[in-house]
């Protein structure tokens, strides 16, 4: 009996020590095939890397910065904190994201992909260029709460970043332009154009849409495509889609930037690509499901201030079956290749 106990003891020791595997050396993430992409039938992008030529080293630097909390005032929050790849770079299950010191934001973090085509950034269009886009969240007191110069100083003091800047730009002197261009390079190369819908449209791999998906596609073309315009699934215009004003936030949207009364309560039309992965929905994340979104569009209260003319007539005439079919179609816009693309993953 004693012997058996001893055997068990040693066996136990063996089992536990065998668990202590040496930490695996993490393979560096891939950086292959970093080229500008303009899928067939798409318009020319707004940003074309003409003054920010694509290089592996800039991409690697931009990716490191995107995922590094060093950009926030207390080094706790990174871009990647609220833009998660598995959610198409939206923030899964968060209507509002929490920034430094658990401060809550006031708008829903949007998905990030095909950003080269955006004429304006943020829900209110306040930011006018992909290169200066990161300055918004970095300096927002509810998000990363930093000033740009202390961030540059932190990067300058880091041997890791001095090395990465040297590789990317030939100088280890960090400045805002190089930092922002590296980030624009990473963000701009996050493309999503390989959903089931895309394969179907390109007649690739003999991909077909199901009956429900096809019915949904046709309903989409009739009811949704005027704003969520193919192939980017947005017209990037600012519209009031009829959701009631949040009485606590009183977010005036586009008017926050323009100061114009006709822009009050208007927000930028978001792309519907990867929409199944970017819940919750709307600029304030008020809807958890696509069903709720379609229920809203099928029953829009008329006469709201600045309500979009396309929704004046009580919204869209959609039956319960129509909504189901549209949702089936929207699911074909998920690009699993992009969601799992290791090039866009956190390198740390």
């Amino acid at each position, binding site marked *: 009996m004693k012997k058996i106990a001893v055997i068990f003891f040693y066996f136990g020791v063996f089992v536990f020590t065998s668990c202590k595997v040496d930490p695996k050396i993490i393979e560096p993430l891939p950086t292959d095939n970093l080229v500008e992409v303009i899928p067939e039938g798409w318009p020319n992008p707004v940003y074309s890397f003409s003054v920010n030529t694509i290089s592996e080293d800039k991409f690697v630097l931009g990716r490191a910065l995107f995922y590094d909390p060093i950009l926030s005032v207390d080094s706790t929050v990174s871009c990647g904190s609220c833009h998660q790849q598995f959610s198409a770079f939206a923030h899964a299950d968060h209507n509002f994201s929490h920034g430094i010191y658990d401060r809550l934001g006031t708008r829903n973090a949007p998905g990030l992909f095909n950003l080269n085509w955006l004429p304006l950034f943020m829900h209110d269009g306040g930011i006018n260029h992909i290169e200066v886009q990161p300055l918004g969240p970095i300096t927002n007191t509810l998000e990363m709460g930093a000033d740009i110069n202390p961030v540059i100083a932190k990067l300058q003091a880091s041997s890791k970043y001095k090395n990465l800047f040297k590789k990317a730009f030939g100088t280890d002197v960090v*400045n805002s332009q190089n930092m922002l261009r590296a980030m624009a390079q990473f963000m701009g190369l996050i493309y999503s154009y390989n959903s089931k819908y895309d394969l179907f449209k390109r007649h690739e791999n003999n991909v077909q849409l199901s009956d429900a998906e096809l019915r949904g596609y046709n309903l989409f073309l009739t009811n949704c495509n005027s704003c969520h315009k193919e192939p980017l699934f947005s017209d990037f215009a600012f519209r009031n889609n009829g959701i009631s004003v949040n009485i606590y936030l009183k977010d005036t949207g586009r008017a926050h930037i323009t*100061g114009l009364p006709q822009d009050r309560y208007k927000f930028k039309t978001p792309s519907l690509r990867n929409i199944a992965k970017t819940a919750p929905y709307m600029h304030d994340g008020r809807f958890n499901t696509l069903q709720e979104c379609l229920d809203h569009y099928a029953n829009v209260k008329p006469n709201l201030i600045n309500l979009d003319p396309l929704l004046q007539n009580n919204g869209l005439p959609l039956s319960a079956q129509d909504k189901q079919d549209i949702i089936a179609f929207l699911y074909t816009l998920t690009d699993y290749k992009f969601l799992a693309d290791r090039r866009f993953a956190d390198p740390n």
Partner: protein
Amino acid sequence: MKILIKFFAIVLFLGLISCKKDTKSPEPAEEPLPVVVPTATTGSVKLVFTHMVDTLPLIFNQNFINAKGDTFLVNKLRYYISNIVITKNDNSIYVEPNSYHLIDHDFPATRTLNIVNLPFTSYKSISFMLGVDSTKSTAGAGTGDLSQANGMYWMWSSGYIMFKLEGYSPKSGSPTKFLEFHIGGYSGINKVQRNFDINISNTPAIVSSSVTPIINLSVNINEIFKTPNLIDFSTQFSIASTGSNAKMIADNYADMITLKSVQN
């Protein structure tokens, strides 16, 4: 006919003696070879911005009186001067390339702009923009004076702060008596860039190898609070976004830069 022959003969004779004269001139080969110095064909002009409050030089943290009669002091003053064009007496122009300059009262060296590569000649006018044009305002990450890290850029509503003045006034409606004028807006009806044409034809700037003319400009801070919109600090003490208020200040500063003198 005879006259004609005589004429030809005289011309020929004159031609011959004139040739003789040439041969008399010293042979260049006999002289030591001159050292060829590449002579510059361009020089420069200095543009000096002197900050004034009416007739007094602006000194930070010192009290002045505005047009409304209220006391105020200034402790920050920065603005962009861009798109400098200088016109020669023959009406041709020199356009300064990449012409974007941030003037910061805290750094006296920034108050002097050197316009270089100017061909030697006389110049009768100079024009520039106060602010940053819409092209550069929508061009993404800048560098140097146009870097987004100079405290002259709005992060949440992209665009350069074209003009920034801060200070205090006991009349200010702010609880801390602060004054804050951050003026921006690069397009649309409320854009705040203003163009200045400085005529110096009375004393043209004569650029030569030995002279770098200095064009002295006066920047009168009190103009910002005077005309056409009289500013009352009790109600207008903080403007920090684009819009009609910013435009109101821009309309005021549209005439704040004037010629003081040209030194050749």
